[in-house]
Protein backbone atom coordinates (compact mmCIF):
# COMPACT_ATOMS: atom_id res chain seq x y z
CA UNK A 1 0.00 0.00 0.00
CA UNK A 2 2.90 2.37 0.72
CA UNK A 3 4.04 2.33 -2.93
CA UNK A 4 0.57 3.54 -3.88
CA UNK A 5 0.81 6.42 -1.41
CA UNK A 6 4.22 7.40 -2.76
CA UNK A 7 2.95 7.33 -6.34
CA UNK A 8 -0.18 9.27 -5.40
CA UNK A 9 1.91 11.92 -3.62
CA UNK A 10 4.20 12.26 -6.66
CA UNK A 11 1.12 12.54 -8.90
CA UNK A 12 -0.24 15.37 -6.73
CA UNK A 13 3.03 17.33 -6.67
CA UNK A 14 3.72 16.77 -10.38
CA UNK A 15 0.32 18.03 -11.54
CA UNK A 16 0.35 20.86 -9.02
CA UNK A 17 3.57 22.09 -10.66
CA UNK A 18 2.09 21.67 -14.15
CA UNK A 19 -1.01 23.62 -13.10
CA UNK A 20 1.17 26.40 -11.64
CA UNK A 21 3.29 26.66 -14.81
CA UNK A 22 0.23 26.66 -17.10
CA UNK A 23 -1.69 29.20 -15.03
CA UNK A 24 1.35 31.47 -14.77
CA UNK A 25 1.53 31.40 -18.58
CA UNK A 26 -2.16 32.19 -19.07
CA UNK A 27 -2.14 34.97 -16.45
CA UNK A 28 0.98 36.44 -18.07
CA UNK A 29 -0.86 36.62 -21.41
CA UNK A 30 -3.80 38.39 -19.74
CA UNK A 31 -1.51 40.76 -17.81
CA UNK A 32 0.20 41.73 -21.09
CA UNK A 33 -3.17 42.84 -22.42
CA UNK A 34 -2.90 40.51 -25.39
CA UNK A 35 -6.27 38.83 -24.86
CA UNK A 36 -9.89 39.82 -25.52
CA UNK A 37 -10.51 40.32 -21.80
CA UNK A 38 -11.08 43.91 -20.61
CA UNK A 39 -7.98 45.80 -19.45
CA UNK A 40 -9.43 45.94 -15.92
CA UNK A 41 -8.39 42.28 -15.61
CA UNK A 42 -4.72 43.00 -16.30
CA UNK A 43 -3.83 44.03 -12.74
CA UNK A 44 -5.58 41.01 -11.20
CA UNK A 45 -3.87 38.75 -13.74
CA UNK A 46 -0.48 40.22 -12.78
CA UNK A 47 -1.14 39.39 -9.11
CA UNK A 48 -2.38 35.90 -10.00
CA UNK A 49 0.72 35.34 -12.14
CA UNK A 50 2.91 36.34 -9.19
CA UNK A 51 1.07 33.85 -6.97
CA UNK A 52 1.56 31.07 -9.54
CA UNK A 53 5.27 31.84 -9.99
CA UNK A 54 5.67 31.98 -6.20
CA UNK A 55 4.48 28.34 -6.10
CA UNK A 56 7.33 27.52 -8.49
CA UNK A 57 9.87 29.16 -6.19
CA UNK A 58 10.71 31.86 -8.72
CA UNK A 59 10.39 34.62 -6.12
CA UNK A 60 13.26 33.09 -4.13
CA UNK A 61 16.91 34.01 -4.73
CA UNK A 62 18.62 32.59 -7.81
CA UNK A 63 20.81 30.31 -5.69
CA UNK A 64 17.97 29.05 -3.47
CA UNK A 65 18.16 25.21 -3.44
CA UNK A 66 14.35 24.82 -3.54
CA UNK A 67 14.09 27.11 -6.57
CA UNK A 68 16.91 25.24 -8.31
CA UNK A 69 15.42 21.87 -7.40
CA UNK A 70 12.01 22.80 -8.79
CA UNK A 71 13.57 24.30 -11.96
CA UNK A 72 15.68 21.16 -12.52
CA UNK A 73 12.63 18.93 -12.13
CA UNK A 74 10.52 21.09 -14.45
CA UNK A 75 13.17 20.99 -17.19
CA UNK A 76 13.80 17.25 -16.72
CA UNK A 77 10.10 16.52 -17.13
CA UNK A 78 9.67 19.01 -19.99
CA UNK A 79 7.03 20.95 -18.07
CA UNK A 80 8.88 24.26 -17.67
CA UNK A 81 6.65 26.09 -20.17
CA UNK A 82 2.89 26.31 -20.57
CA UNK A 83 1.00 25.05 -23.59
CA UNK A 84 -0.24 28.27 -25.16
CA UNK A 85 1.25 27.63 -28.60
CA UNK A 86 -0.05 30.04 -31.26
CA UNK A 87 -2.25 31.58 -28.55
CA UNK A 88 -3.93 33.87 -27.83
CA UNK A 89 -2.88 34.92 -31.34
CA UNK A 90 -0.34 33.68 -33.86
CA UNK A 91 2.90 35.57 -33.11
CA UNK A 92 4.29 38.02 -35.64
CA UNK A 93 6.97 36.63 -37.89
CA UNK A 94 10.43 38.19 -37.69
CA UNK A 95 13.26 38.46 -40.15
CA UNK A 96 16.95 39.21 -39.91
CA UNK A 97 18.45 40.72 -43.06
CA UNK A 98 22.19 41.06 -43.39
CA UNK A 99 23.76 43.64 -45.71
CA UNK A 100 27.27 42.57 -46.68
CA UNK A 101 29.61 45.41 -47.70
CA UNK A 102 32.67 44.37 -49.74
CA UNK A 103 35.94 46.24 -50.20
CA UNK A 104 35.16 46.94 -53.86
CA UNK A 105 31.89 48.69 -52.97
CA UNK A 106 29.59 45.74 -53.74
CA UNK A 107 26.62 45.17 -51.43
CA UNK A 108 24.91 41.77 -51.05
CA UNK A 109 21.90 40.73 -49.02
CA UNK A 110 21.86 37.50 -47.03
CA UNK A 111 20.00 35.78 -44.21
CA UNK A 112 21.23 33.18 -41.71
CA UNK A 113 20.71 29.76 -43.25
CA UNK A 114 20.52 26.13 -42.22
CA UNK A 115 20.41 23.01 -44.40
CA UNK A 116 17.37 21.05 -43.19
CA UNK A 117 13.75 22.08 -42.79
CA UNK A 118 13.81 20.78 -39.21
CA UNK A 119 16.60 23.24 -38.39
CA UNK A 120 14.82 26.05 -40.30
CA UNK A 121 11.90 25.74 -37.85
CA UNK A 122 14.37 26.16 -35.01
CA UNK A 123 15.96 29.22 -36.59
CA UNK A 124 12.49 30.79 -36.93
CA UNK A 125 11.84 29.99 -33.29
CA UNK A 126 15.06 31.81 -32.32
CA UNK A 127 14.18 34.88 -34.42
CA UNK A 128 10.72 35.06 -32.84
CA UNK A 129 12.29 35.10 -29.37
CA UNK A 130 14.64 38.02 -30.09
CA UNK A 131 12.13 40.89 -29.64
CA UNK A 132 10.97 39.44 -26.32
CA UNK A 133 11.88 41.69 -23.37
CA UNK A 134 13.34 38.68 -21.53
CA UNK A 135 16.04 38.21 -24.18
CA UNK A 136 17.01 41.89 -24.35
CA UNK A 137 20.37 41.35 -22.52
CA UNK A 138 21.50 38.70 -25.03
CA UNK A 139 19.88 40.19 -28.15
CA UNK A 140 22.95 41.92 -29.53
CA UNK A 141 25.16 38.88 -28.83
CA UNK A 142 22.72 36.59 -30.63
CA UNK A 143 22.47 38.88 -33.66
CA UNK A 144 26.28 39.12 -33.70
CA UNK A 145 26.56 35.31 -33.65
CA UNK A 146 24.02 34.97 -36.47
CA UNK A 147 25.87 37.64 -38.46
CA UNK A 148 29.17 35.87 -37.81
CA UNK A 149 27.72 32.56 -39.09
CA UNK A 150 27.09 34.30 -42.44
CA UNK A 151 30.41 36.15 -42.35
CA UNK A 152 32.31 32.85 -42.11
CA UNK A 153 31.00 32.00 -45.58
CA UNK A 154 31.94 35.43 -46.99
CA UNK A 155 35.39 36.11 -45.46
CA UNK A 156 36.16 39.02 -47.84
CA UNK A 157 33.30 41.15 -46.46
CA UNK A 158 34.47 44.47 -44.96
CA UNK A 159 31.43 45.51 -42.97
CA UNK A 160 28.09 43.99 -42.13
CA UNK A 161 24.76 45.55 -41.17
CA UNK A 162 22.14 43.39 -39.47
CA UNK A 163 18.57 44.67 -39.61
CA UNK A 164 15.95 42.92 -37.53
CA UNK A 165 12.27 43.54 -37.96
CA UNK A 166 8.75 42.17 -38.02
CA UNK A 167 7.02 40.89 -41.10
CA UNK A 168 3.35 41.81 -41.28
CA UNK A 169 1.45 39.53 -43.64
CA UNK A 170 -1.66 40.79 -45.46
CA UNK A 171 -5.00 39.63 -44.09
CA UNK A 172 -7.21 37.55 -46.35
CA UNK A 173 -9.05 40.56 -47.87
CA UNK A 174 -5.80 42.47 -48.44
CA UNK A 175 -4.32 39.37 -50.07
CA UNK A 176 -7.27 39.16 -52.47
CA UNK A 177 -6.65 42.83 -53.34
CA UNK A 178 -3.08 41.92 -54.27
CA UNK A 179 -1.31 43.34 -51.23
CA UNK A 180 1.84 41.64 -50.03
CA UNK A 181 3.66 41.48 -46.70
CA UNK A 182 5.33 44.56 -45.23
CA UNK A 183 8.59 44.71 -43.31
CA UNK A 184 8.83 46.89 -40.20
CA UNK A 185 12.47 47.37 -39.02
CA UNK A 186 12.86 47.17 -35.24
CA UNK A 187 16.60 47.57 -34.70
CA UNK A 188 19.85 47.27 -36.58
CA UNK A 189 23.49 46.68 -35.71
CA UNK A 190 26.67 47.47 -37.67
CA UNK A 191 29.54 45.03 -37.32
CA UNK A 192 33.06 45.26 -38.65
CA UNK A 193 35.54 42.43 -38.27
CA UNK A 194 38.88 43.25 -36.71
CA UNK A 195 41.90 42.59 -38.94
CA UNK A 196 43.25 39.79 -36.73
CA UNK A 197 39.89 37.96 -36.79
CA UNK A 198 39.83 37.99 -40.57
CA UNK A 199 42.76 35.60 -40.79
Amino acid at each position, binding site marked *: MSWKRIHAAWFGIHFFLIAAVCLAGVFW*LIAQGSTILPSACNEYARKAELAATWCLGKEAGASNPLRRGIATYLHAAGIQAGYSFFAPNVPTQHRLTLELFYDDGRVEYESPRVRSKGAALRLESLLDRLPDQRYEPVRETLVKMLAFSVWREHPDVKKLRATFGSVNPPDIIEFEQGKTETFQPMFSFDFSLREEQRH
Partner: protein
Amino acid sequence: MQSVVKSPESQISAGLSLLQKCWQHFLGFLFQPENDTWLAVLRIGLGLQVAVYALFLRSDWHYLFASSGKGLVGREVGEAITSFDSPLIPTFGWLVALGRNFNMSEETVLTVGWVCLLSAGLFLLLGLLCRPAAIAAWFVHLCAAESGGLLAYGADVFMTTALFYLMLSPLPDRYSFDQWVTKTKRRNPQLLGFWRRVLQVHLCFVYFIGGLAKCLGSGWWDGSNLWRSLIRPPFTVVPPDLLVRFKYALPVLGIAICLLEVSYPIFIWIKKTRFVWLVCILAMHAAIGLLMGLYLFALVMIVMNIAAFAVPSANTTALRRSTSSDRQ
Protein backbone atom coordinates in the same frame (compact mmCIF):
# COMPACT_ATOMS: atom_id res chain seq x y z
CA MET B 1 -41.77 16.77 12.12
CA GLN B 2 -38.80 15.59 14.07
CA SER B 3 -35.32 16.73 13.22
CA VAL B 4 -32.32 14.58 14.11
CA VAL B 5 -29.47 16.55 15.61
CA LYS B 6 -26.13 14.79 15.21
CA SER B 7 -23.48 15.07 17.88
CA PRO B 8 -20.17 16.76 16.91
CA GLU B 9 -18.38 13.40 17.23
CA SER B 10 -20.68 11.71 14.77
CA GLN B 11 -20.36 14.68 12.37
CA ILE B 12 -16.56 14.40 12.51
CA SER B 13 -16.64 10.65 11.95
CA ALA B 14 -19.06 11.12 9.00
CA GLY B 15 -16.71 13.70 7.53
CA LEU B 16 -13.73 11.39 8.00
CA SER B 17 -15.53 8.48 6.37
CA LEU B 18 -16.46 10.74 3.42
CA LEU B 19 -12.80 11.74 3.09
CA GLN B 20 -11.80 8.08 3.30
CA LYS B 21 -14.29 7.25 0.55
CA CYS B 22 -12.96 10.08 -1.67
CA TRP B 23 -9.38 8.89 -1.10
CA GLN B 24 -10.34 5.31 -2.05
CA HIS B 25 -12.09 6.62 -5.20
CA PHE B 26 -8.98 8.65 -6.06
CA LEU B 27 -6.74 5.61 -5.57
CA GLY B 28 -9.17 3.53 -7.66
CA PHE B 29 -8.93 6.14 -10.43
CA LEU B 30 -5.13 6.28 -10.27
CA PHE B 31 -4.46 2.55 -10.04
CA GLN B 32 -7.03 1.12 -12.42
CA PRO B 33 -5.44 -2.17 -13.63
CA GLU B 34 -4.22 -2.10 -17.24
CA ASN B 35 -2.28 -4.38 -19.55
CA ASP B 36 0.86 -3.17 -21.29
CA THR B 37 -0.43 -2.68 -24.84
CA TRP B 38 -0.56 1.12 -24.41
CA LEU B 39 3.04 1.07 -23.17
CA ALA B 40 4.14 -0.87 -26.25
CA VAL B 41 2.44 1.78 -28.43
CA LEU B 42 4.20 4.56 -26.51
CA ARG B 43 7.58 2.82 -26.73
CA ILE B 44 7.35 2.05 -30.45
CA GLY B 45 5.95 5.51 -31.24
CA LEU B 46 8.65 7.32 -29.27
CA GLY B 47 11.34 5.09 -30.75
CA LEU B 48 10.19 6.18 -34.19
CA GLN B 49 9.97 9.81 -33.01
CA VAL B 50 13.53 9.83 -31.61
CA ALA B 51 14.95 8.15 -34.72
CA VAL B 52 13.16 10.60 -37.05
CA TYR B 53 14.28 13.55 -34.86
CA ALA B 54 17.91 12.44 -35.10
CA LEU B 55 17.69 11.86 -38.85
CA PHE B 56 15.93 15.21 -39.49
CA LEU B 57 18.73 17.09 -37.69
CA ARG B 58 21.59 14.94 -39.08
CA SER B 59 22.92 17.56 -41.51
CA ASP B 60 22.66 20.47 -39.02
CA TRP B 61 23.49 18.66 -35.77
CA HIS B 62 27.01 20.10 -35.35
CA TYR B 63 26.00 23.48 -36.74
CA LEU B 64 23.21 23.82 -34.13
CA PHE B 65 25.08 22.51 -31.09
CA ALA B 66 28.71 23.51 -31.69
CA SER B 67 30.29 26.21 -29.53
CA SER B 68 30.62 29.88 -30.56
CA GLY B 69 32.51 30.57 -33.75
CA LYS B 70 31.75 27.15 -35.21
CA GLY B 71 27.97 26.91 -35.16
CA LEU B 72 24.91 29.02 -35.87
CA VAL B 73 24.76 30.93 -32.58
CA GLY B 74 26.90 28.70 -30.38
CA ARG B 75 25.37 26.61 -27.64
CA GLU B 76 26.92 28.73 -24.85
CA VAL B 77 24.12 31.31 -24.86
CA GLY B 78 21.41 28.66 -24.52
CA GLU B 79 23.40 26.88 -21.83
CA ALA B 80 23.97 30.10 -19.91
CA ILE B 81 20.23 30.83 -19.89
CA THR B 82 19.54 27.25 -18.77
CA SER B 83 22.15 27.38 -16.02
CA PHE B 84 20.60 30.60 -14.74
CA ASP B 85 17.45 28.53 -14.05
CA SER B 86 19.54 25.77 -12.47
CA PRO B 87 23.11 24.56 -13.05
CA LEU B 88 21.88 20.99 -12.46
CA ILE B 89 20.02 20.80 -15.79
CA PRO B 90 22.00 18.57 -18.18
CA THR B 91 23.43 20.15 -21.34
CA PHE B 92 25.92 19.16 -24.05
CA GLY B 93 28.42 21.32 -22.15
CA TRP B 94 28.55 18.56 -19.51
CA LEU B 95 29.30 15.89 -22.10
CA VAL B 96 31.93 18.04 -23.85
CA ALA B 97 33.66 18.67 -20.49
CA LEU B 98 33.54 14.94 -19.75
CA GLY B 99 34.91 14.13 -23.21
CA ARG B 100 37.87 16.46 -22.64
CA ASN B 101 39.04 14.12 -19.86
CA PHE B 102 39.30 11.38 -22.48
CA ASN B 103 40.97 13.65 -25.08
CA MET B 104 37.80 13.75 -27.16
CA SER B 105 37.16 16.83 -29.26
CA GLU B 106 33.85 18.69 -29.11
CA GLU B 107 33.02 17.43 -32.59
CA THR B 108 33.57 13.80 -31.57
CA VAL B 109 31.41 14.22 -28.45
CA LEU B 110 28.58 15.72 -30.52
CA THR B 111 28.87 12.88 -33.04
CA VAL B 112 28.76 10.30 -30.24
CA GLY B 113 25.71 12.09 -28.81
CA TRP B 114 23.93 11.92 -32.17
CA VAL B 115 24.80 8.22 -32.64
CA CYS B 116 23.57 7.48 -29.08
CA LEU B 117 20.28 9.25 -29.76
CA LEU B 118 19.68 7.43 -33.04
CA SER B 119 20.64 4.08 -31.50
CA ALA B 120 18.40 4.68 -28.49
CA GLY B 121 15.51 5.44 -30.87
CA LEU B 122 16.13 2.23 -32.85
CA PHE B 123 16.51 0.17 -29.66
CA LEU B 124 13.18 1.53 -28.39
CA LEU B 125 11.57 0.72 -31.70
CA LEU B 126 12.72 -2.90 -31.42
CA GLY B 127 12.24 -3.17 -27.69
CA LEU B 128 15.87 -4.01 -27.09
CA LEU B 129 17.28 -2.91 -23.69
CA CYS B 130 14.11 -0.86 -23.26
CA ARG B 131 14.87 0.88 -19.96
CA PRO B 132 18.51 1.89 -20.71
CA ALA B 133 17.44 2.98 -24.20
CA ALA B 134 14.61 5.12 -22.77
CA ILE B 135 16.98 6.73 -20.23
CA ALA B 136 19.64 7.39 -22.91
CA ALA B 137 17.07 8.87 -25.32
CA TRP B 138 15.64 11.13 -22.59
CA PHE B 139 19.09 12.28 -21.45
CA VAL B 140 20.63 13.03 -24.86
CA HIS B 141 17.44 14.69 -26.10
CA LEU B 142 17.27 16.79 -22.93
CA CYS B 143 20.91 17.88 -23.48
CA ALA B 144 20.03 18.88 -27.06
CA ALA B 145 16.84 20.69 -26.03
CA GLU B 146 18.61 22.62 -23.26
CA SER B 147 21.83 23.44 -25.16
CA GLY B 148 19.78 24.68 -28.05
CA GLY B 149 17.17 26.21 -25.73
CA LEU B 150 16.65 29.27 -27.89
CA LEU B 151 16.19 27.04 -30.92
CA ALA B 152 13.71 24.69 -29.26
CA TYR B 153 10.00 24.58 -30.06
CA GLY B 154 6.86 22.70 -29.00
CA ALA B 155 7.95 19.31 -30.31
CA ASP B 156 10.98 19.33 -27.98
CA VAL B 157 8.86 20.02 -24.90
CA PHE B 158 6.50 17.13 -25.66
CA MET B 159 9.35 14.77 -26.55
CA THR B 160 11.05 15.45 -23.20
CA THR B 161 7.80 14.83 -21.32
CA ALA B 162 6.91 11.67 -23.25
CA LEU B 163 10.42 10.23 -22.82
CA PHE B 164 10.36 11.16 -19.12
CA TYR B 165 7.13 9.16 -18.63
CA LEU B 166 8.39 6.27 -20.76
CA MET B 167 11.60 6.06 -18.77
CA LEU B 168 9.66 5.82 -15.49
CA SER B 169 6.99 3.41 -16.77
CA PRO B 170 7.24 -0.33 -15.98
CA LEU B 171 9.26 -1.43 -19.02
CA PRO B 172 9.67 -3.85 -20.79
CA ASP B 173 6.27 -4.56 -22.32
CA ARG B 174 5.29 -7.98 -23.62
CA TYR B 175 5.86 -7.04 -27.28
CA SER B 176 9.48 -6.04 -26.72
CA PHE B 177 12.53 -8.05 -27.69
CA ASP B 178 13.64 -7.92 -24.02
CA GLN B 179 10.53 -9.78 -22.92
CA TRP B 180 10.98 -12.39 -25.65
CA VAL B 181 14.56 -13.05 -24.57
CA THR B 182 14.39 -12.79 -20.77
CA LYS B 183 10.78 -13.86 -20.15
CA THR B 184 10.56 -11.58 -17.09
CA LYS B 185 7.62 -11.67 -14.68
CA ARG B 186 4.49 -9.82 -15.81
CA ARG B 187 4.37 -6.18 -14.65
CA ASN B 188 1.96 -5.02 -11.97
CA PRO B 189 -1.27 -4.07 -13.85
CA GLN B 190 -2.04 -1.35 -11.29
CA LEU B 191 1.34 0.28 -11.89
CA LEU B 192 0.76 0.12 -15.64
CA GLY B 193 -2.63 1.73 -15.05
CA PHE B 194 -1.05 4.48 -12.95
CA TRP B 195 1.40 5.53 -15.67
CA ARG B 196 -1.34 5.52 -18.28
CA ARG B 197 -3.41 7.79 -16.01
CA VAL B 198 -0.44 10.17 -15.72
CA LEU B 199 -0.24 10.40 -19.51
CA GLN B 200 -4.01 10.85 -19.82
CA VAL B 201 -4.23 13.59 -17.21
CA HIS B 202 -1.21 15.34 -18.73
CA LEU B 203 -2.90 15.49 -22.14
CA CYS B 204 -6.02 16.93 -20.51
CA PHE B 205 -3.88 19.77 -19.09
CA VAL B 206 -2.21 20.35 -22.45
CA TYR B 207 -5.45 20.70 -24.42
CA PHE B 208 -7.40 22.58 -21.78
CA ILE B 209 -4.70 25.24 -21.32
CA GLY B 210 -4.01 25.41 -25.07
CA GLY B 211 -7.73 25.73 -25.81
CA LEU B 212 -8.29 28.29 -23.06
CA ALA B 213 -5.42 30.48 -24.29
CA LYS B 214 -6.75 30.27 -27.86
CA CYS B 215 -10.28 31.21 -26.71
CA LEU B 216 -8.77 34.40 -25.23
CA GLY B 217 -7.49 35.54 -28.63
CA SER B 218 -9.80 37.30 -31.07
CA GLY B 219 -8.07 35.77 -34.07
CA TRP B 220 -9.30 32.24 -33.37
CA TRP B 221 -12.94 33.34 -33.48
CA ASP B 222 -12.77 35.00 -36.92
CA GLY B 223 -10.37 32.57 -38.59
CA SER B 224 -7.58 35.14 -39.03
CA ASN B 225 -5.20 33.13 -36.81
CA LEU B 226 -5.60 30.06 -39.01
CA TRP B 227 -4.86 32.19 -42.08
CA ARG B 228 -1.80 33.76 -40.41
CA SER B 229 -0.46 30.41 -39.20
CA LEU B 230 -0.85 28.76 -42.60
CA ILE B 231 0.81 31.56 -44.62
CA ARG B 232 3.60 32.10 -42.11
CA PRO B 233 7.02 30.95 -43.37
CA PRO B 234 8.42 28.32 -42.86
CA PHE B 235 4.98 26.75 -42.32
CA THR B 236 3.81 27.65 -45.83
CA VAL B 237 2.94 24.29 -47.35
CA VAL B 238 -0.44 25.22 -48.86
CA PRO B 239 -0.30 28.09 -51.40
CA PRO B 240 -2.26 31.15 -50.11
CA ASP B 241 -4.23 31.25 -53.40
CA LEU B 242 -5.66 27.85 -52.56
CA LEU B 243 -6.41 28.89 -48.98
CA VAL B 244 -8.45 31.89 -50.16
CA ARG B 245 -10.92 29.48 -51.74
CA PHE B 246 -11.72 28.13 -48.26
CA LYS B 247 -11.94 31.52 -46.57
CA TYR B 248 -15.47 30.91 -45.25
CA ALA B 249 -14.36 27.66 -43.63
CA LEU B 250 -11.53 29.30 -41.64
CA PRO B 251 -13.69 30.90 -38.86
CA VAL B 252 -15.60 27.64 -38.43
CA LEU B 253 -12.36 25.66 -38.18
CA GLY B 254 -10.84 28.22 -35.77
CA ILE B 255 -13.83 28.00 -33.41
CA ALA B 256 -13.91 24.21 -33.76
CA ILE B 257 -10.24 23.98 -32.69
CA CYS B 258 -10.88 26.18 -29.62
CA LEU B 259 -13.91 24.15 -28.55
CA LEU B 260 -12.30 20.80 -29.32
CA GLU B 261 -9.26 21.60 -27.17
CA VAL B 262 -10.97 23.30 -24.25
CA SER B 263 -13.59 20.53 -23.91
CA TYR B 264 -11.09 17.66 -24.35
CA PRO B 265 -10.77 17.00 -20.57
CA ILE B 266 -14.54 16.38 -20.40
CA PHE B 267 -15.46 14.51 -23.57
CA ILE B 268 -12.37 12.28 -23.75
CA TRP B 269 -13.44 10.57 -20.50
CA ILE B 270 -17.04 9.91 -21.61
CA LYS B 271 -17.18 6.57 -23.42
CA LYS B 272 -19.81 7.74 -25.93
CA THR B 273 -17.85 10.81 -27.05
CA ARG B 274 -14.28 9.52 -26.65
CA PHE B 275 -14.01 8.11 -30.16
CA VAL B 276 -15.25 11.33 -31.83
CA TRP B 277 -12.95 13.58 -29.76
CA LEU B 278 -9.97 11.34 -30.34
CA VAL B 279 -10.53 11.17 -34.10
CA CYS B 280 -10.94 14.97 -34.27
CA ILE B 281 -7.77 15.59 -32.23
CA LEU B 282 -5.76 13.09 -34.29
CA ALA B 283 -7.09 14.69 -37.50
CA MET B 284 -6.11 18.14 -36.17
CA HIS B 285 -2.54 16.97 -35.49
CA ALA B 286 -2.30 15.20 -38.84
CA ALA B 287 -3.42 18.45 -40.49
CA ILE B 288 -0.83 20.45 -38.50
CA GLY B 289 1.83 18.01 -39.67
CA LEU B 290 0.82 18.00 -43.32
CA LEU B 291 -0.31 21.61 -43.81
CA MET B 292 2.33 23.34 -41.69
CA GLY B 293 5.22 20.91 -42.06
CA LEU B 294 5.44 20.39 -38.27
CA TYR B 295 5.97 16.64 -38.68
CA LEU B 296 7.80 16.00 -35.40
CA PHE B 297 5.23 17.92 -33.36
CA ALA B 298 2.36 16.09 -35.08
CA LEU B 299 3.96 12.67 -34.62
CA VAL B 300 4.66 13.04 -30.89
CA MET B 301 1.13 14.30 -30.20
CA ILE B 302 -0.44 11.49 -32.22
CA VAL B 303 1.68 8.88 -30.41
CA MET B 304 0.78 10.29 -26.97
CA ASN B 305 -2.94 10.43 -27.79
CA ILE B 306 -3.06 6.91 -29.21
CA ALA B 307 -1.16 5.48 -26.22
CA ALA B 308 -3.32 7.38 -23.73
CA PHE B 309 -6.81 6.94 -25.14
CA ALA B 310 -6.94 4.92 -28.37
CA VAL B 311 -5.64 1.60 -27.08
CA PRO B 312 -8.68 -0.13 -25.50
CA SER B 313 -8.56 -0.47 -21.72
CA ALA B 314 -7.96 -3.95 -20.39
CA ASN B 315 -10.64 -6.19 -18.94
CA THR B 316 -10.16 -4.90 -15.39
CA THR B 317 -11.99 -7.77 -13.66
CA ALA B 318 -9.77 -10.36 -15.33
CA LEU B 319 -6.68 -8.29 -14.54
CA ARG B 320 -7.67 -7.89 -10.86
CA ARG B 321 -8.23 -11.65 -10.65
CA SER B 322 -4.87 -12.38 -12.24
CA THR B 323 -3.14 -9.88 -9.95
CA SER B 324 -4.61 -11.50 -6.84
CA SER B 325 -3.76 -15.01 -8.12
CA ASP B 326 -0.19 -13.80 -8.77
CA ARG B 327 0.02 -12.66 -5.16
CA GLN B 328 -1.21 -16.06 -3.90
